[in-house]
């Protein structure tokens, strides 16, 4: 009789325990999923920011713009052939 009651009680406790574990796992999964989404969004935002910065850099580094600044602004010139020497090692 006591043995039967003990088995029943332990099964009851096990059931309650597993029910709570399910609830906990579900909650964890939601939290993890939210975190995953947040990180995925953050990654996308960073990717996008990177693309935007690349674009900005490419625009600033436009050959035509650099040439204008170098020639007109800084007075740089292409060295003439007579100015160049070759060093043989």
């Amino acid at each position, binding site marked *: 009789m006591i043995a039967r009651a003990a088995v029943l009680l332990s099964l009851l406790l096990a059931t309650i325990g597993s029910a709570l574990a399910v609830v906990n796992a579900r909650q964890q999964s*939601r939290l993890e*999923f*939210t975190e995953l*989404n947040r990180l995925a969004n953050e990654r996308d935002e960073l*990717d*996008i920011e990177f*693309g*935007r910065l*690349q*674009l900005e*850099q*490419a*625009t600033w*580094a*436009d*050959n*035509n713009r650099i040439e204008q600044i170098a020639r007109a602004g800084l007075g740089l010139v*292409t060295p*003439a*052939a*007579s*100015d*160049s*020497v*070759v*060093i*043989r*090692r």
Partner: protein
Amino acid sequence: MNQRVRPFNPRGRVALVSVLLGLAGCALVVRAVDLQVVSKDFYQEQGDARYLRDIAIPVSRGTIFDRNGEPLAVSTPVESIWVNPSELLAHAADRIPELADAAGLDATSLREKLEERSRREFYFIKRHLNPDAAQAILDLGIPGVASQREFKRYYPSGEVMAHVLGYTNIDDQGQEGVELAFDGWLSGKSGIKRVIRDLRGQQVENVDLIAEAQPGRDLTLSIDRRIQYLAYRELKAALAEHRASSGSMVILDVPSGEILAMVNQPSFNPNARTAIDPAYRRNRAVTDVVEPGSTMKAFTISAALESGKWTPHTPIDTNPGTYSLYGHTISDVHNKGLIDVTGVITYSSNVGAAKIAATLPSERMYDLFHRFGFGELTGCGFPGESSGYLPIAKDWGPVEQATIAYGYGLNVTPLQLAQGYAALANDGELHAPTFVKGTRNPSRAVVDPAIAASLRGMLETVIVPPGGGVRAAVKNYRVAGKTGTSRTAVGGGYQKKYISLFAGMVPASAPRMVGVVVIHDPQGVFYGALVAAPVFGKVMDGALRLLDVPPDNVQSWYAAAELPAKTAAMPAANYEEEVPE
């Protein structure tokens, strides 16, 4: 008292009630089975449809880089405003003017468009706004208005790269050029996720990922943005100087066959999504054919050397500067008299080329031209590439063979011409040109290395006086190349319009780059030597420096041992020969 009382029969009642209850129970079971088993899918679907939504996850298109990792085409996110017309008309019809105002649209026409689509649930009212502008519209809080993330393509190099890259349409699908050729590689696959949404359409929970999003892959081209810019700048300047109608330039990397630069004029701005004249959009270097004129003589002479009947120094009499063949007269600009085979290249003698061709079997000449890739697609994979036109040998009469020998009666694209010269530059090994860095197209031997080497020697004589191509010279480097001038063929006849060509390689001692310049319809002077050759020289001057190619023709040498102390003391002293260590 004959009150008749029906005898009470409890058993009958119990039976009746039992049967009725049993039937009711059966009905419940049947209904339950119907709901839970038979029609489960239907009800489940109906239930899900009320709160589950499948949402597309947008992916960006891959970035295109040049060979040094500089971005050439980048997708950045933009917001597109869409409305649910039925919801908007039902709940906020009076706010349409407010919405139109914020989106910069005309209120009356917006209302008309919405009413036309009143049964639909999705309609874009404004696409590709920057995120801030889109947020301003959303902040109005008009029901049925939402935004969707999309991607827009930007081309930082603008018109310099326009023809090679091509462009995408508003849905980010490749329409032309590399964007079209590599569309499958560049465009990702948008994913689908399932979410739970509440009454107001807010996402409450992500339920499931149905299809994972695959972002587009990046692509690294073989183009060098700096050389591309140089070529574009010089070609544009030459077109302006000679008031020419159009032009192309192609530069190939000799050891690999990679395309370092490919530019065309006129060009267009791929960032402005306006209607563009199709003539401006063509990548002429690949899609348009020209008669190559004298630049073809390099291949005629290759065939002559291959036949064994001719050597670079075999004399040939070009007197009196004209040559009649079946009533067709071939003439030179100047009568050069008795010259050798090298002289045919140096002075670009049509008579010499025709006389040499007359000694060659047409099949052999055709075979050599064909091996160099003429009349065939190059295999670069560019959309709309032309294969050019090389008539088959059995259609060659003596006159056809003579004209083909100096570059008439066949058509080539500038890229094909560059490919052919690259094979000469690469010791007779032909690489199919490619737009993708590191493709490593296998090469095939098209001509004996010794013949390629002697051709390079002959082509070098063109660039030094008294050759015709001195304007293509590059200081400190040896250049080999050939000028060409041809009349434009229109409808079977030849108009008084000219095409100036130059094809060449640098440095001639160990060619690194091959360049082809084609300029259509120059006004005033029209010889390839005066119009196209200077473009080659100016572009290669910069390109050689950019690629750090060591000079092979320098007058000034300094020995390492003399540095640095004596450098200052000996400015610009000319060392005629190399100083040994």
